[in-house]
């Protein structure tokens, strides 16, 4: 893996602008692709390896992935102040927009069909969300089928059993981590013995 390039000193305002743009144009998800385009493809401020590392961390940490990713890239480029600028630039414009949209919605919400319409939008959005999960499930069987079992445990806990989310996540995370650690250990033993699995 190549050593990370020593970051150029990107001016804070130039760091903030792409995040402003991403925050305002990112409809319905898929934001990390935009970040890749702005920071790796268009500006070459960070390397592809740095981007992938940042993306992975942002996905396993709690919090919106895109916020964590912005914080990470800001940190790589300008340290703590860079993190702060990136996250604020990403968040503040869409916060203002979404509040204005709710105000506008309040003007029309006396018409019954508006609620039907919004319910249809929500249903399609749920389908979109589910498609992300389904794609993840299909890609998760690289190391065996146990990840499907883990995902199924979470779904049964919160959807079928209607248990509270926090204990479900904690319990199932422990199981997932134990299996993954065990598998990793066995894989390293096999590798040390020089056997190819």
């Amino acid at each position, binding site marked *: 893996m190549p050593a990370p390039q020593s970051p150029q000193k990107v001016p804070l305002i130039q760091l903030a602008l792409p995040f402003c743009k991403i925050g305002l144009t990112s409809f319905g998800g898929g934001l990390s692709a935009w970040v890749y385009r702005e920071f790796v493809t268009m500006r070459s401020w960070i390397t592809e390896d740095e981007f992938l590392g940042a993306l992975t961390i942002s996905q396993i*940490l709690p919090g919106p992935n895109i916020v964590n990713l912005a914080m990470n890239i800001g940190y790589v480029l300008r340290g703590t102040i860079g*993190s702060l600028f990136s996250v604020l630039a990403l968040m503040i414009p869409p916060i203002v927009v979404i509040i204005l949209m709710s105000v506008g919605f309040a003007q029309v919400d006396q018409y019954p069909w508006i609620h039907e319409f919004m319910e249809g939008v929500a249903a399609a959005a749920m389908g979109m969300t589910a498609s992300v999960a389904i794609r993840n499930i299909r890609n998760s069987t690289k190391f065996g089928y146990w990840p499907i079992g883990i*995902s199924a445990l979470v779904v049964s806990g919160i959807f079928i059993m209607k248990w509270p989310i926090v204990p479900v996540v904690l319990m199932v995370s422990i199981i997932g981590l134990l299996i993954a650690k065990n598998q990793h250990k066995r894989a390293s033993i096999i590798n040390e013995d020089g056997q190819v699995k």
Partner: protein
Amino acid sequence: MTDESLYLTLIKVFAPLSLISIGGGQSIVGDIHYQTVSLHHWLTQSQFIDLFAISRAAPGPGALLTTIIGWQLASWKGAMIASLALFLPSSVLAYFIIRVGHTKRDRPWYRWVQNGLAPVATGLILGSSLVVLRGTTGGLSPWFIAAIAAAIFIRFAKTHPIPVLLAGGCAQVMIGFFFGPN
């Protein structure tokens, strides 16, 4: 409820969710629904669905749902408090882990921790979408719309979301018009 106790409750509801929202804001929508509709009765089912749909049709992270729930309950102050409660704890945690993780990302444990947690996030995302669908009031048609949308996005991952979301809204209006309210 007094203002102060509402603010406190907002923080008590959203701050813990912030710390478990692994896999992004989508994973906690199910619990936000439970807390705001069933537990605290801040919103009716239909209000929740409206706000949820706005959060999906608006730009920015889907977790801005929290911002407009706060707005609905207590205007600007509510929006600010709810947003901070949802975004600040996870961000502070992420900041420190990013600082430390910066030097550790080639370590072997990094990979198995990721492998172990990824399916949990997947389950949360799927479970959350099912919980919200169960909360819709339109009978079978939202499930039908969701299934078609899911199929579209699985088959064509790069589809622009907005036309599909709008088509979903139109489909629901038309189903209601032709088959009457369920």
